[in-house]
């Protein structure tokens, strides 16, 4: 009965298979081979690639670095974005202009902006160090020292993606009902208490959403690192995706890169799920009610 229904499902299924299932299954297969420059092709290497990965400290360091980088930048983006959204939420002069202004960084191309930021950070030619010197802070080795380079990547990430947080949180704020705020005023709550007791709890669900979307995006940081520092100095700013790029595309160790990618995929899926659960527990109070 109605056997022709499968005909209508077929296009969607084909796309699913071609776009998601085939590459995934192929990657799994490749990860069990030792496909590289010298031995191209699918052979059977068993779990050799995974054993090698287990001992690859550069990979685990990149993973740890990525966690630090993404969690800290997303957190700062959230705080800044929330603050900016609160700033232009109520009727203030020129809020339309400010709303557009805050969105400009998000509209720019990451690679282009990374190039511009690299120029800004340039230790002898860039504009930043002369400004810092004028302020009495002194020139900083922005891209040549490990901690500074890490901070530089963070700054660019925060600059680029805070507008996204701002946009989502502003939309959330604008959708809030006005009565609780009126009630808080009648009850005599000041601005801080109103924020903590009214605004923030009501923004819980949308905050979790915004943070998760950014966390998923941030776990793939690649172009900023590539353009700004190329993972350097040394491996000080090397993230997982950049390391996989080096192994797969530069060294052409296809089998090993596949194993790295899969491990990365699983770790990220588990980690983001746990983060989501934790955030919901922490920020969305009514979920428990």
């Amino acid at each position, binding site marked *: 009965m109605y056997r022709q229904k499968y005909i209508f499902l077929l296009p969607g299924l084909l796309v699913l298979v071609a776009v998601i299932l085939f590459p995934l299954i192929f990657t799994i297969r490749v990860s069990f081979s030792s496909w590289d420059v010298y031995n191209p092709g699918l052979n059977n290497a068993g779990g050799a690639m995974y054993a090698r990965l287990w001992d690859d400290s550069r990979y685990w360091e990149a993973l740890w670095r990525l966690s630090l980088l993404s969690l800290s930048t997303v957190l700062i983006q959230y705080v800044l974005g929330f603050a900016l959204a609160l700033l232009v939420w109520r009727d203030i002069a020129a809020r339309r202009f400010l709303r557009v202004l805050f969105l400009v960084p998000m509209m720019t191309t990451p690679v282009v902006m990374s190039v511009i930021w690299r120029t800004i950070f340039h230790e002898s030619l860039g504009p930043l160090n002369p400004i810092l010197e004028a302020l009495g802070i002194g020139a900083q080795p922005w891209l040549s020292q490990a901690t500074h380079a890490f901070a530089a990547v963070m700054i660019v990430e925060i600059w680029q993606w805070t507008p996204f947080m701002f946009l989502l949180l502003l939309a959330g704020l604008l959708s809030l009902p006005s*009565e609780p705020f009126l*009630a808080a005023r*009648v*009850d005599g*709550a000041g601005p801080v208490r109103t924020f903590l007791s009214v605004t923030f*709890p009501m923004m819980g669900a949308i905050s979790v959403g915004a943070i998760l979307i950014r966390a998923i995006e941030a776990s793939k940081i690649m172009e900023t690192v590539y353009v700004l520092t190329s993972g350097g100095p040394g491996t000080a700013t090397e993230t997982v995706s950049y390391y996989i790029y080096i192994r797969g595309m530069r060294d052409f160790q296809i089998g090993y890169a596949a194993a790295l990618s899969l491990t990365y995929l699983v770790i990220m899926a588990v980690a983001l799920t746990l983060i989501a659960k934790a955030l919901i527990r922490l920020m969305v*109070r*009514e979920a428990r009610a």
Partner: protein
Amino acid sequence: MAEIRLQELAHAYAPGAPHALKPLDMTWRDGGTYALLGPSGCGKSTMLNIISGLLHPSEGRVLFDGQDVTRLGAGQRNIAQVFQVPVIYRSMTVGQNLAFPLVCRGGPTPRIRQRVEAIAERLGLTPLLKRPANALTADQKQLVSLGRGLVREDVAAILLDEPLTVIDPQMKFELRRILKEINAEFRVTMVLVTHDQTEAMTFAEEVIVMNHGEVVQAGRPRDLFERPATTHVGHFIGSPAMNFLPALAVAGRAVVPGTGLSLPLPDGLPTDGLVLGFRPEHARLSGASGTMQGRVARLWFEGLDEIVALSHPAGEVRLRAPAGLGLAPGDTAAFTLRDTALRLYRNGRLVA
């Protein structure tokens, strides 16, 4: 608790814009119950928000017990307000919700707890104190909102902005009863904003009818029912609405042509725009002849009563009659009406 006085109060939302609330003077007795009644957009919520301090009036003053509070913010006025949508602080328990106004003002914790427990006891919320407020039903949430007002001992008045609109009919009755009890017990001034005339008439000692930003009539429910100041009030209050028929001046009397409805015209009154009105409740069906005769157009069942719509060349009138008279659409019927039940209006305003 306080007497609330509105002095030459008026409000326009922007300079030069038309008044959302036209200039008015009014005094609300300490401990009284008042209802602001009117259609949506008539300015009743504007008035309420001015009293609670959420809105600063563009003209005039608000006095609590003779003290000018016009420029004070909502938090400094000791006013409690219950909104149409039940407002609860979602992240808190019922107990924390009730304590919130006291916590905001500071004070010893044991005192706050004692007060919260007393109010919860009064409102029947004691078993729910530890529950998350978000998990309550709409009417319980509305009780919590009310409780947040009552918990402050110094509260000058409780303003209720259509608080029963989203409540189930059954619970509406219950909540209205609780409100009346609270008023009697705490002697706290209560002002109810509503567009439901039954709610206003049953709740308040004095009803203030508003239309287009203006107070049309203020008085006891019986006065509004018996002597509506305008045809608008007559339409708005009472179910079914008051009957109005255009009248002509004939030999010093206002007469509805083709009927026995007539009233003497006061001296010197211009004779255009005359209307005679009467309540459906005051007419008595009287068989074939009477003050006015017409054809039965429609009938509505209303329990012990029946609403009969009579059509007549002068217009359609509705009567409230005991059910079971055996009338059917198309029948001819007549009714009698005492002159004392007739009201004369000119250009929509009560004359006699």
